[in-house]
């Protein structure tokens, strides 16, 4: 039982709990705040996976930029508590729960057969600079340059499209 197990257990539990709160919160604002918490705990899990750069991007882009956009829209639309009174067990909810539970069972049964080959050790990761910004940048700009440029074009199109769609009169 190492410190890694303890940290993983704590972060995993908190991630699942805050994800549950995203789904079952009454007002959209508390859903959004729970989602921010989920992103922070997931960033902790990413650090355990030696993905420090992705963890920082997660906090900056997801918990920073995207969630600010969500909160801004929720407050702009002035959505209060949902009008649904109490948790009712309707047919769509039961069917959705059954579908999600079935998928979870199948996924866990499949994952349990993944061979756990831990040939890649911590020493190799540290000496090779695994997960550092320098190594990821090297990979992106040598092997993934065209997709990277395509993503920048996608973000530009998204920006212009958001302005055009949300404008009242064109």
């Amino acid at each position, binding site marked *: 039982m190492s410190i890694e197990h303890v940290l993983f257990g704590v972060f*995993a539990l908190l991630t*699942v709990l805050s994800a549950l709160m995203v*789904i079952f919160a009454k007002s959209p604002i508390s859903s959004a705040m729970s989602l921010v918490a989920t992103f922070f705990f997931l960033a902790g899990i990413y650090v355990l996976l030696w993905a420090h750069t992705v963890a920082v991007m997660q906090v900056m882009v997801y918990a920073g930029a995207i969630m600010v956009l969500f909160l801004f*829209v929720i407050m702009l639309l002035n959505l209060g508590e949902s009008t649904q009174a109490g948790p009712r067990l309707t047919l769509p909810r039961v069917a959705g729960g059954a579908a999600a539970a079935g998928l979870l069972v199948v996924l866990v049964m499949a994952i349990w057969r993944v061979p756990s080959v831990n040939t890649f050790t911590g020493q190799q990761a540290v000496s090779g600079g695994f997960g550092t910004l320098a190594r990821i940048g090297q990979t992106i700009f040598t092997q993934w340059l065209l997709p990277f440029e395509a993503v920048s074009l996608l973000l530009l199109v998204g920006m212009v499209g*958001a302005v055009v769609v949300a404008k009242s009169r064109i």
Partner: protein
Amino acid sequence: MANSVDIKYYLILAAILFCLGMFGVLVRRNALVVFMCVELMLNAANLTFLSFAKQNGDLTGHVSAFFVIAVAAAEASIGLAIVIAVFRSRGTVNIEEIRTMKH
């Protein structure tokens, strides 16, 4: 390494997150909360990419996670703009009352 967490547990956590996101997409009616649940599912995908990247010592998974984050940002901007436009013309974000995208 014996004292490191097995990759299975990371993958199971990702599966749980994905199924929670799917459950939310299926049962919630507020369009904004449905978007948030889609973000949960995207994060589950990211967690899977990073787990396999750690197992194989390959940085391609990190690059994929970076692309997923960028695409999620674009998706959120367009989706929220559509939600604002729909709310302006209909006065609701309940996806059961929105049956058409036409003006």
